[in-house]
């Protein structure tokens, strides 16, 4: 049994606390991303994270629902998106007029494990904005007419997804690893899945996922806590209570084919190598984020020699998909079609060397310095900062990781990083994909 501290000493320390030097106070708090947020739970069970940011009279609210592509039932690809989008269909002209008058706006992003609704408002109009949007989201009008119109929108989004090689790459790889279900489910569905989805499926998904205990709200505003807390409780308290649904088991991963190729009549070929990383937890996320930054974020990354020495591409990228059950890392570039084979060989050679040789001490320190500053840069604006905190909390990593990112990154040791690299970046684990003209045709067109 631990001895209890003397009460008088505790009181004395508490009394002296305001007088402690700032440096000591700072050392006690690891939060380094603006003002330290406060977290609380609404009566209906919704987790709310609130950060004050007085730099502008605007408010961003990110509402995360744990329910994304991976939660679409088998054969019902697109259900998570359709349900989330229905909740944002404005049912009353008066509501639309209010949002327009106030200059408020909203958007939706559906990812592998969650759906994220971004609400933007001038702070003086926050109450009404949240009232209208939370009202719509908590009680969507699920009519055949609306569902039909949204399916048309999704058909358009399917085409846009195919037209953008970067998105097509992510979609193709997810389907390659996970099949047509789970993370491989088509975000905007396909003709067969859209035909299968009706009001019953949407209602079931809505009732299971759009409950307060399955949601996280992150609000960043200049409004003080006394003003905004009751407002949030009043508006977000509209969502029904209820806990998280059971997680859908991930379908077995499929052995990827040796080479993936999609034919497109483009001037350039997208050349990518992708690799599955471990499941998402705090340590793995930090290691993967550091790897992503070190490999291919910004000028001078580890991929840079492909440009500086080989002139193979204008941009070089590493992009992490932080799925809960298996993170996915895509490394890619776009090169003149006739050089695609050369680019692929060079990319494979470089990544093999990285997997084999690992990182040295100087490289690790440099990677950390860049990754920390880049994390701050990416989260300088409140919209992205709130999304980051919502994602971390929604994924079970805790919103606090956003403020402790730099400190936690600093603790990663060279051995730990290299063990991670060698375990996950072995050459046989990479899956190549090319999107562009067939090689023979590319050679002909460039002669």
């Amino acid at each position, binding site marked *: 049994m631990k001895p209890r501290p003397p009460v008088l000493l505790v009181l004395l320390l508490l009394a002296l606390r305001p007088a402690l030097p700032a440096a000591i106070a700072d050392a006690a708090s690891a939060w*380094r991303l*603006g003002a330290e947020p406060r977290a609380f739970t609404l009566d209906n069970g919704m987790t709310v994270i609130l950060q004050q*940011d007085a*730099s*502008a*009279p*605007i408010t961003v609210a990110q509402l995360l629902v744990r329910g994304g592509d991976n939660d679409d039932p088998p054969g019902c690809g697109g259900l998570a998106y359709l349900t989330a989008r229905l909740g944002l269909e404005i049912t009353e002209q008066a509501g*639309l*007029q209010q*949002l*327009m*008058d*106030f*200059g*408020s*706006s*909203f958007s939706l992003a559906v990812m592998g494990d969650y759906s994220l609704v971004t609400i*933007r408002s*001038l702070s003086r*109009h926050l109450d009404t904005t949240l009232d209208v949007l939370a009202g719509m989201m908590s009680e969507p009008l699920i009519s055949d007419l609306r569902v039909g119109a949204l399916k048309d929108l999704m058909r*358009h989004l399917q*085409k*846009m997804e*195919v*037209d953008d*090689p970067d998105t097509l790459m992510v979609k193709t790889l997810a389907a390659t690893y996970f099949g047509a279900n789970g993370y491989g489910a088509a975000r905007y569905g396909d003709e067969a899945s859209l035909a299968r989805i009706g009001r019953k499926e949407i209602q079931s998904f809505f009732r299971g996922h759009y409950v307060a205990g399955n949601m996280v709200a992150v609000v960043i505003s200049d409004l003080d806590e006394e003003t905004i807390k009751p407002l949030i409780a009043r508006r977000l308290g509209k969502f029904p209570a209820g806990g998280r649904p059971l997680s859908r088991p991930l379908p077995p991963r499929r052995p990827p084919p040796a080479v993936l190729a999609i034919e*497109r*009549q*483009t*001037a*350039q070929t997208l050349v990518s190598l992708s690799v599955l990383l471990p499941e998402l937890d705090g340590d793995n996320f930090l290691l993967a984020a550091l790897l992503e930054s070190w490999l291919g974020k*910004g*000028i*001078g*990354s580890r991929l*840079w020699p492909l440009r*500086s*020495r080989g*002139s*193979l*591409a*204008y*941009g070089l990228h590493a992009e992490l998909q932080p799925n809960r059950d298996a993170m996915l890392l895509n490394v890619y570039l*776009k090169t*003149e079609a006739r050089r695609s084979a050369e680019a692929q060989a060079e990319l494979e050679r470089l990544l093999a060397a990285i997997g084999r040789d690992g990182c040295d001490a*100087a490289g690790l*320190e*440099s990677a950390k*310095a*860049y990754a*920390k*500053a*880049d994390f*701050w*840069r990416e*989260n*300088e*604006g*409140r*919209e992205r900062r709130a999304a980051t905190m919502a994602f971390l909390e929604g994924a079970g990593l805790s919103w606090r990781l956003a403020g402790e990112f730099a400190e936690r990154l600093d603790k990663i040791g060279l051995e730990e990083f290299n063990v991670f690299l060698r375990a996950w970046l072995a050459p046989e684990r990479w899956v190549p994909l090319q999107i562009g003209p067939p090689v023979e045709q590319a050679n002909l067109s460039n002669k």
Partner: protein
Amino acid sequence: MISHWRMGLPVCFLLPMALLFPAAAEPPTSAYFTLDNGLQVLLQEKHDLPLTGMALAIDLGTKDESEATSGYAHLFEHMLLFGSGGSMDSEARLAELRRHGVAHNAHTDHDLMTFELSCPAAESAWALEQMRQTVFSGQLDPRLLESEKRVINEEILQLRDDPAFLGRLLVMEQLFAGHPYGRPVYGDGRAIAGATVEGLRAFCAPRLVPGNCALSVIGDFTLAAMEEHVRRSWGGLAKAAAPAVVVPLAGRLEKSGEQQISLDIQESHLFIGWRAPDFNDEQRLAFSLLTHILGSGLNPLLNSVMRGNRQLADRVNMSYMPLRSGGMAVLHVTLKEKDIRAAKGEVASFMGRVSSFNFSKEDVLPRDRMHVLDFLGSAKNQMEYGNGSFRESTLNLSVACSRYLLLNRTPVQGSYLENVDKVSSSDLRRAAGKFLSGRKWVVLAITPLPGKAP
């Protein structure tokens, strides 16, 4: 001579107002001054995160080129950004920047070249010196030149595969045909292929003088310390005169044009471009609000027009780019190929009426106001939100400030938002009448390759 003025709000738009209110009891958080060598400098403290953003705008762009030097400014920007600086070679310099957590980039457009850098606040002084070396001490390496020519070729190919970018590029070329803004920033390939280090230097070096530049540094530092760093690092640059370049105002488009091209895509894209107010035109703010009302935000007017009963479009967006000697407004519609003709007709008909539109509740009798959407009020609120959001990034803000210092030629009274607030519904109608209603346009359709549409 260095003077300080107190500035507490977004400096890029408040600069002229700040000059009217010198001195204040509390310590200043912003400063604007000109070094003896002519470099304009703007500093602003911003302590939200431990970051500093800095940008150097140079009055050098595509507008300065001729047919023989087409693409030189952009190529020169690449050479400086990726070249060696000081005693380090290119790769060592880039590695050193990363070791200090620095992200850097550069952009060239028709008017200006901008070098941008973001760093942890603790590295501000070091990074400031690096930026000076990058731009003013860069050595032009012939091997790098050949390498960057190939990289720029990749850049051009990448942009040509992207319908959204390609559409704007081609509309701009047509809209300003015969004017310096009609030349592509990336060049036409021929001039770049023959470019030499000597040729690049002869073209760019005379324009690369402090008096032709504006530096903006915004972030987590103290004003006095940063001013000292700037003076020490940048004050030694020699003063020199830059060649005078006069780019004529673009004026009205005399003839409409239409073009259609095909790419391997599934959705079609329709672009319609109009000439619009230049950066210093008194109608710039009114036109900017008009663009918001017509084609951005929650439910813009053109969205109702195109996606109403006839469902002619899947997505609608309108943007406005004010340049020093002209402006461009572009409507981008994503739609099915079969709807292109009808969509064009709908836009023509709507734009013909827009100069008589009621944008505000003030335009109708009080008894009818309940049923009228306040488009103008909505757009002002959107711009206020956008302004607040934009100010959050030290890098965005520093880039905007440095560009403003070189582009602005009009003394403006009051802050940006105060001026936005003054715009009336009649101002919007006037702007619509002058630049959109019945005006010549450029139309570009990008459609799926024949036989490849789904």
